[in-house]
């Protein structure tokens, strides 16, 4: 993904920042897919043994759990990226 041809110090830092960002995005999206498509739909039969309020865990993930995880993911990403901006000195102002 990084363009290797223009190698200044700044470009190398920029590439490091971008690679770190991509890593955080990929990890977050794996969790995003796991709770919705995974627990909520495809893996529901696997976790059906765990009962929650008159139904099973997959139903809870499909109707509530996934939404709560999505919220946590977005706030985690905003916090982590603002920290990353400062580590690489690319924050605004």
């Amino acid at each position: 993904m990084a363009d290797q041809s223009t190698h200044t110090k700044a470009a190398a830092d920029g590439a490091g920042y971008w690679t770190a960002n991509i890593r955080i995005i990929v990890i977050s999206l794996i969790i995003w897919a796991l709770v919705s498509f995974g627990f909520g739909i495809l893996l529901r039969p696997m976790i059906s043994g765990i009962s929650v309020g008159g139904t099973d865990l997959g139903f809870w993930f499909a109707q509530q759990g996934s939404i709560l995880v999505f919220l946590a993911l977005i706030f985690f990403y905003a916090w982590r990226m603002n920290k990353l901006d400062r580590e690489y000195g690319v924050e605004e102002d």
Partner: protein
Amino acid sequence: MDQFTINLLFVGASFALYIGIAIWARAGSTSEFYAAGRGVHPVTNGMATAADWMSAASFIGMAGLIAFTGYDNSTFLMGWTGGYVLLALLLAPYLRKFGKFTVSEFIGDRFYSPTARIVAVICLIVASTTYVIGQMTGVGVAFGRFLEISNTSGLLIGACVVFAYAVFGGMKGVTYTQVAQYVVLIMAYTIPAVFISLQLTGNPIPALGLFGETAAAGGEGSVYLLQKLDQVVTELGFASYTEAHKDNLNMVLFTLSLMIGTAGLPHVIMRFFTVPKVSDARWSAGWALVFIALLYLTAPAVGAMARLNITNLMWPNGTSNEAVSVEAIQNDSEYNWMLTWQKTGLLDWEDKNGDGKIQYYNDQSDAMAAKAAENGWEGNELTKFNRDILVLANPEIASLPSWVIGLVAAGGLAAALSTAAGLLLAISSAVSHDLMKGQLTPNMSEKSELLSARIAMAVAIGVATILGLNPPGFAAQTVALAFGLAAASIFPALMMGIFSKRVNNVGAVSGMLAGLGFTLVYIFLHKGWLFIAGTNSFPDTVDGSLLGIQSTAIGAVGAIINFAVAYIVSMSTADTPQEIKDLVESVRVPAGAGGAVDH
């Protein structure tokens, strides 16, 4: 005071509030008209985004679809919230850094091609107009009910109100008005849900009540609400509430379409242009989802509890005893809502076997055929129950006080109006800013730009009203089609524009055209050309469909086609120029994000 007067008071008071705010914060310049001078705090912006986003589909439509289907329609819940993760991680901060007003400006600049910009404008207009059709369906239901007139008259009156309202101000007026609308709509949604949750489960928080036990049911011992619901609906021959009945492929693709579409809809993305900083764009998406989640965590409880209440009203002595009598519906106050909703033409019943009772059951079920024959039933007698009326009728079904019913009427209208206004703004800015000023007549004055924006609004609402008279589905289903179209056209272009330096002008244009073309044709083959009933070539069911995929779920496939075509075409044509690689590089880091740049 009768219910009609109370509804009128609540709706009138809420409208006075919105119009007051719109006058107070009236847009003066084009920059304010589109992006409110970028002076909006992330929390305020999140709340306005939530109002903008939660439309008639979320407020009026969604719980009704969940109520009558159960688990299978959880896809709406996951799809319409999961998209915010994509938006926050993949688009919002970068588009804010880019620092222009509209989505198509980004596409035009990044793919260094006026053609790309025009194709993006076309994609936006197609998706947004389909979305407005869904809103108009909801507006028709809400106005029909609260003015106690037919659905069609409600739709026509609603169209005039939406138009007057959207023309009034631009984004700035709309931002603060939408904060007020959010407060009205969230109260209108949660207050009745709290009452109903207390009645049924004793728990004041509906989201917890859904998984709670039913309140003391005459010494029977307590049962979980969901178990009781499963039991009564299966006794009437309906599919169980909590089990899966749809195939995994369609569920996954449908959810994915809604998610990608959320991140590809112009009126939502535009919101992230209005925050002061890149870091604020990241927080804004989170705050928006907080305010959205308040409604989305309540919606499944509203659906399940309403379904249980309706079943109990139709079978007041339990499903194994006598059904409700026609006489009770005509005279008892707890059935008043059935008479009022009958006037809109969206609810109806018929005593087919003439026994003076209304039997509500699934007459398509083989298991029920024997029971029906034994009891002399001649088919389901609750002949019509439009899914879109459920949320609005819900407080009446649960016999809540009349001020709650008035509040819900005001909330439903707030939801439909705020989204319709946001969409019309997106359509009008696409036409006047991107198409007219950007391409056709670059020298036009600010004044004529605002005028052409308003003409575009009028045309869009006219088309949406005509098509809204015979909508391609219930409000939330029509809106789902709009998401499929946005998913297949806009989102892939935006994402590739940020995450790849290699995708070039020809690639992006071919990708968008392939994605939009495929999805639109597939939808029209199943829903009818231009949504005109009877012109479809395939039945709109999973089994009858062309690829075994429902038309509402095809957007995800369109998005994959878009990505693939753009990549293959880009690889076999010239590389992007250096200045574009630099542009992508600069969009990726927050440092140096300035104020608005207009050209």
